[in-house]
């Protein structure tokens, strides 16, 4: 079956012409199956947010392909893209800045209908109320402004706005990072519920590994613009192959007080004090594993290690013969 979204060698560079060249997204490829929840993991500087904006072409890719249901998006005209936008929607991270402070909830949630000329007047109100109920908001609040709602409720408004056109793919950029943990639980459960009833596919972008473990079927971990490990959530979390994945999993503070992780902190430096020279593996300046010559000179390709699990590391050898 055609994956609903496929990225092939997607690249985005900023700068050039006098300014330092930044490869925010470098040759990223992965695909998402219809109906699944795909987690894109990464910390600051990994390029995941840029990727989130590349897919609906809020930023233009420098090169590579974006295939939505098999059709390439990067070559579409503005008008064709607008039609596609009904099917790919995005929920932003910051519930405090992602909603226009001067629009009422009704205007915000109803706007997609107005823009795509789907409904107006009473029909629009009806649809807005329906969405509000669906996400757990009180329909009597349609004339209120975003700042009157709490963070969790604002995020619900953002979700309602994104699903009102019944998209097929929903990109969630750090949807719960700014929320308290109990509110996060509510929003995550809402998302699971909505996926079931509306048959959505999710691309969930976050730095929070526990959220990915809870929500996602498959995951890809990004570092400095490239995917360093990819596979099913079970594979990535229980048998991580890439040293970065292993380090991250070790570094998450566990809520079990008997698991002492502080005594074995793995990564010594942060990204900016150990910068990538531009040659070789991006992670090598910080890699705790014993490195071989190639690590500094050749960028490791993302190859399949075991069934469906990929990693980009010279130190990891595939268990099965390498496919193309």
């Amino acid at each position: 079956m055609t994956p609903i979204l496929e990225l092939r060698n997607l690249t985005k560079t900023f700068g050039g012409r006098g300014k330092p060249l930044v490869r925010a997204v470098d040759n990223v490829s992965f695909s998402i199956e219809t109906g699944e929840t795909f987690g894109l993991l990464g910390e600051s500087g990994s390029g995941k947010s840029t990727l989130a904006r590349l897919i609906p072409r809020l930023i233009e890719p420098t090169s590579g392909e974006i295939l939505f249901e098999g059709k390439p998006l990067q070559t579409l005209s503005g008008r064709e893209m607008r039609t596609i936008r009904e099917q790919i929607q995005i929920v932003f991270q910051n519930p405090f800045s992602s909603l226009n402070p001067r629009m009422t909830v009704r205007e915000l949630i109803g706007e997609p209908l107005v823009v795509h000329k789907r409904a107006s007047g009473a029909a629009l109100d009806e649809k807005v109320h329906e969405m509000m109920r669906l996400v757990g908001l009180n329909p009597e609040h349609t004339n209120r402004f975003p700042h009157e709602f709490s963070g969790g409720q604002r995020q619900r408004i953002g979700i309602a706005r994104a699903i009102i056109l019944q998209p097929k793919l929903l990109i969630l950029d750090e949807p719960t990072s700014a929320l308290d943990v109990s509110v996060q639980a509510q929003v995550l459960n809402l998302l699971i519920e909505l996926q079931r009833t509306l048959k959505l596919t999710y691309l969930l972008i976050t730095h929070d590994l526990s959220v990915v473990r809870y929500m996602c079927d498959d995951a890809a971990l990004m570092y400095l613009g490239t995917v360093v490990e990819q596979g099913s959530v079970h594979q990535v979390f229980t048998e991580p192959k890439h040293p970065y994945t292993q380090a991250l999993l070790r570094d998450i503070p566990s809520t079990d007080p008997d698991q002492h992780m502080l005594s074995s902190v793995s990564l010594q430096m942060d990204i900016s004090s150990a910068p990538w020279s531009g040659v070789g593996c991006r992670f090598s300046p910080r890699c705790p594993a014993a490195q071989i010559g190639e690590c500094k000179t050749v960028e490791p390709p993302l190859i399949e290690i075991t069934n469906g699990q990929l990693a980009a590391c010279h130190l990891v050898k595939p268990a099965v013969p390498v496919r193309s």
Partner: protein
Amino acid sequence: MATAPALKPPNPSAFARWRADHASQITDLRRGVYRFTRNRLSVIGLLLVIILIIIAITAPLWIPYPEDVTGSVNMAQRLVEPSALHLFGTDDAGRDVFSRTIMATRTSFAVGVIILTVAITIGVTLGSIAGYFGGVTNQVIMRLTDIMLTFPGIFLALAISAALGRGIINATLALSVTWWPGYCRLVEAQMLKMREEDFVAGARAIGASNRRVIFRHILPNLLTAIIIKASMDFGFAVLSLAALGFIGIGVLPPEPDWGSMISAGRRFIPDSWWYSTFPGLFMFVTVLAFNLLGDGLRDLLDPNSTVR
């Protein structure tokens, strides 16, 4: 902040519903008014502005000597001191300074409104385009703006008047042309900032056109800044018009205008001090009033400032 409200009684009146719906806006307004009224100076500014506007609008109905405004000459009453008959005295053609000063208010305000309307229309449009689209478009527009800004308004007005002739229409035109760059800059800078905001990305993500994003999403957020600037500018626009009148361009005699009155009255200082002084006073009060109001409006319209 918001918890589910208690159930309302069935079938409330339409007004009560409207009240409930817009409760937050009403609260914001009340909060703004509260902040505004705490600042005595802004309230004074507001009152003065209101008084001046009323004067400007109703002037023809109550000025004591309307014929003096249109140019009647009464040499017998030349340069009479301020008295009960002539509150501000008379000028060198025997005309009542009070009536003329009041009528000049009307002219000044009308011109001020026109100047700002034109300036804002041009400036905001160009600034939006430059700020939103960036690149070459931005460079072209902003460099044009820079060029316009290097011309002192007075000189441009002189040039235009020299080319097109004297008169209030040409003066208004000249001033409008020199005023828009300020708004263009303001809007461009804000637009550049707002363009990166998440809610703009959100609008684009749902497929909104550029026009919609600019006018429906970004500009309403810039309205505050524009209104504040406009209220401050009004005083200075009036001042500029007076400056033109002072050097003899602008309003044609015998139309009354503060600037030309002050200019004409210079010869008679200090003996017939009233000729220049009263128009000058009115000008001063107008500029001051609008400045105070502008300051106060910033408090009223900015929802983010905290009350102390």
